């Protein structure tokens, strides 16, 4: 047996011992990376041993030594990884300790300069209503706010000088033919436009801005919002109207609420009704008007009353917003005063 292997074994053991000591002595990840690259690099002791393997003549001894070199390399790498984990844990802990940030301070100083966005209470109410009606199978229709006399009155079964026109305080637009153009007094003209433009069956709600010649007070504005519903299909009945109002009531207000219809009068529906919502505590909210679309109105919309029938309903949106948020004076809702709107963040 030659002594060379012994000497090489000793060299390897010494290199391993020294390497492990250097690894253990590394004080930072960076040091460790340096130590490892010198230990395992091309010019390192292990590499030197590897390259001298060829000189070992005995195949078995060379094999054995080669295996020992590889094992030493693995040992060093494992030691390095273990030490590296410890070092990194300490280093991240130090980084975390040094980077302290008071999130509340950041939040508060951001608050001071940040603008907050909010939708108008009426827009919020409109979207809520739309969503409930979409759930009930309705689409959303829109129409112009400046209307002709035809759409606002005449097509709605109110021929010129019909006394029921006085049910609305109308704002008229200056035009060549006096009184022929109005600011729509209700969303009902959209009914006619939808009947003319959409092929039946029609299941639509029509939210929008309406106008009346009314002096503003705590409960009235000259410009406010309504939502109108229109259903046109074959075989639509008054019972369907009552059932649809009931579905809406439960979907919008909650399961504990119910609805009732009581006789009323609108020129564009017959039979006509007011609809009231009963709160779970037994009190009533008078909500809006509804009824079966009058045959004259169907004809004005270009539909044959013998083939198509339908119902319509409508109510105010502003009041929904007002009651939901406990607003005492509707004028506050239209003040655009940030001191009012910022409450509803």
């Amino acid at each position, binding site marked *: 047996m030659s002594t060379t292997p012994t000497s090489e074994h000793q060299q390897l053991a010494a290199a391993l011992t020294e390497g492990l000591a250097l690894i253990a002595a590394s004080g930072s990840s960076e040091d460790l990376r340096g130590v490892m690259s010198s230990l395992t690099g091309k010019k390192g002791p292990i590499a030197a041993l590897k390259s001298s393997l060829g000189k070992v003549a005995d195949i078995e001894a060379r094999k054995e030594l080669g295996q020992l070199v590889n094992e030493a390399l693995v040992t060093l790498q494992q030691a390095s990884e273990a030490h590296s984990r410890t070092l990194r844990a300490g280093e991240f802990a130090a980084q975390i300790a040094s980077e302290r940030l008071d999130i509340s301070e950041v939040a508060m100083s951001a608050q001071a300069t940040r603008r907050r966005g909010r939708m108008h209470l009426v827009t919020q109410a409109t979207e809520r209503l739309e969503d409930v009606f*979409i759930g009930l199978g309705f689409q959303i229709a829109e129409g*112009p706010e400046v209307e002709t006399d035809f759409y606002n009155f005449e097509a709605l079964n109110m021929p010129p000088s019909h006394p029921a026109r006085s049910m609305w305080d109308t704002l008229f*637009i200056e035009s060549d033919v006096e009184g022929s153009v109005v600011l729509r007094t209700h969303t009902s003209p959209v009914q006619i436009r939808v009947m003319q433009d959409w092929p039946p069956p029609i299941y639509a709600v029509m939210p929008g801005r309406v106008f009346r010649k009314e002096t503003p007070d705590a409960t009235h504005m000259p410009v406010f919002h309504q939502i109108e519903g229109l259903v046109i299909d074959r075989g639509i009945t008054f019972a369907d109207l009552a059932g649809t109002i009931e579905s809406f009531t439960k979907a919008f207000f909650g399961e504990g609420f119910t609805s009732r219809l009581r006789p009323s009068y609108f020129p564009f529906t017959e039979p006509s009704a007011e609809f009231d919502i009963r709160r779970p505590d037994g009190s009533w909210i008078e909500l809006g008007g509804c009824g079966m679309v009058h045959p004259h109105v169907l004809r004005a919309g270009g539909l044959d009353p013998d083939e198509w029938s339908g119902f319509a309903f409508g109510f105010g949106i502003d009041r929904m917003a007002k009651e939901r948020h406990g607003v005492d004076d509707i004028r506050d809702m239209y003040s655009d005063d*940030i001191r009012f709107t910022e409450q509803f963040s």
Partner: protein
Amino acid sequence: MKVLLSILLEMADIPSDPEVVAVALTSLGLAVEEMDIVGAPIPGVVTARINRMEKHPDAAKVTRCFVDAGDGEERHVWCGATNMQPGDVVPLATLGTKMPNGMDIARRGILGIDSEGMLCSEVELGLSEESSGLLILPKDSPLGVSPFEVLGIEHDVVFDLDLTRNRADCWGHLGVARDLAAHFAVPLKGPRIDVGARGAEKSLPVVIDAQENCGSFSVSYVSGITVGPSPRSVASRLAHLGMRSINNVVDASNLVMLETNQPNHAYDAAVVSSFRVRLATAGEKLTTLDGQERALHPEDLLICNGVDNSGVGLAGVMGDQHSEITDTTTTLAVESAWFSPDPIRFAAIRHGLRSEASVRFERGTDPNAWELAAERFVTILRESCPTATLHTGATIVRTPHCPQPIPVDVSVDSVERKLGIRIEADRIVSILNAIGFSASVKGDIVSSVVPTWRPDCSESVDIIEEVARHFGYDNIGKTVPNSTVHGRLSSMQQRRRTLRRVLVGLGLDEAMPSPFLAPGDLSRVGLSEDSVLRIANPLVADESILRTSLRPGLLRSLRYNQSHRAPRVGLWEIGHVYPKSDAQLPDESEQLAIVVAGGDAETALTQWNAICDALSVGTQLDQSRVPSGLHATRSATLARGKQVVGVVGEVDPMVLHELGIEGRVSILEVNLSILLNEEPKPVQAKDINRFPSSDIDLAFVAPDSVPAVNIQRALRQAVAKRLVSIELFDVYRGKGVAEDSRSLAFRIRMQEAGGTLTDSVLAEVQQACIAAAQKAGAALRS
């Protein structure tokens, strides 16, 4: 419209519980707005005789009254009234009484002498709105009883009904009673009639010239009249119904109108013994009962004295002052007519005179109620004047314009199709008969005749509504339609909602200023007023113009907040504008506007970029067109080719100064009718170009008047199809760059479609870029 429970109970045997009646009224569509209990005896108020009166030397304005309330005890009461004398019987509110106005009667003293109650006026008892002193009762009244009992005032209930425009018939108690009788399935008795023996035939002549305006005109002759006060029961009913008692004749006339819905007028037959109905002539005048002399219009309808053709009443509106009955009147010509509704409505509007009669005529009265009205008139009058005699031979003249009963058929099936519930023919017939629509059935068809008191009904749908009303809306049931339509938002509506959320996310508050502007508001923000629409009848002049831009309203709201210690508001609005067009309706469109106090052009551009990303849209910036009212060197037009989509930048500082706004204001305005209506087509995926890309950086010096976007456009065209992106990564002004110029450094990233870019191609493109930039007004920075 007020109705009294006592009158309804006289007309039909309906339940007397007011709560039950109120519920029935509302379920019939006669909504009860208010229900008041009136004339209820006040516990503690009794009749008392004033035994003696004394003045106190130190209290000139009050009198000491010593009264006897029938219980053998003399009470001392201080009294401020002056209309009483010893011996008078007056109402005494004894100690502990709670008065209708909430006052408690307690032992109160003047000059150390206590008052043991209070002597009362009509006002204090809640009997009238005004009075002048104590209520003096008849001297022979019993003492210690309720003064209401002595006066014959009955405890009653007033229902204030919010009548719908169609129910003309319910302007009389009779119409209300008819609906209630049908509802409770009891017979309708109508008003009590007792005219005693009829007088000899007496017919007063009537001529109707204006036949279109007057469908019928009747005159009944009544003799044996003594004009005097009404019985208390009549006067108090009138008071409960909101009318003043005048005398027994006028009161009977008014009460008949309130009961039967037939306006009528009693003339002194010695003065007016024949009638003519004609249109007024220009220049004619009439002094109405309210004392006003009125210049008449040729469309005004006049009731005239047939003898001299002089006006004695503005038909359907108000009588003439000079033809009023007097204390010496002994015979009456009682007139009841049917006038066409529209002319009466227009006359009432023309003269600004809405009377109890005109509100009834303009809704439509019953041309066949005249006889009942005359009989009821005499019946009421006979309570105070037993000699009043109704003569036979009353005159009734009808013209071709008099409404007739209208036959209307409905099929039982059509009722079911409309209501969604089967109501059998017998039930339909009995409902209709109960409300006076004489009905009969033949097969599937119910034939009915609409009575003349229901001018609102003329076709089958009207009949179906009556059936539904009396069948009960609550009994019809609730179903939901079997729909094939799917609920959804349109793409435009969906995109509008996305936009709202982006705006909220940008920290902006939604505002909703009035769409009405004052003249000058638009020009004050630098916009034209040429194409505005005006409101013909505005509430106030400051709200007489329809906006053509959201800008004035938003800036006003911004300024309002600035002046209320909120200097940093950011507001948006999505709303319509209404510029005038050549068509009948304006060129209405939906707009978005954003203003931010303290914001600059970059603020507005950042907002615009966020909106474009969220909505997948884009526009070109056009600085060559300065939007009016905006900062001339810090603003641009948003364009799509030739089409203007909006503006972006800052508000003109001069405009801000005029409005009193401090600091800069950024502004973004976009026409949403254009932007939201274009649904972007789904982008089709392309293969990723995996060949390497190359960048070239080029810096150009350009005068400030050359917009960067122009140079970018030129570069884009020069690189053409190889272009991946162009980024402006540096802008430099200062040393080494000429005054009023800046250096703009672009990084251009390129890629070849089918391979790697060669150096020669890169060099070629670079030269093309330099040349193109030069053409656009920018020189390569050396």
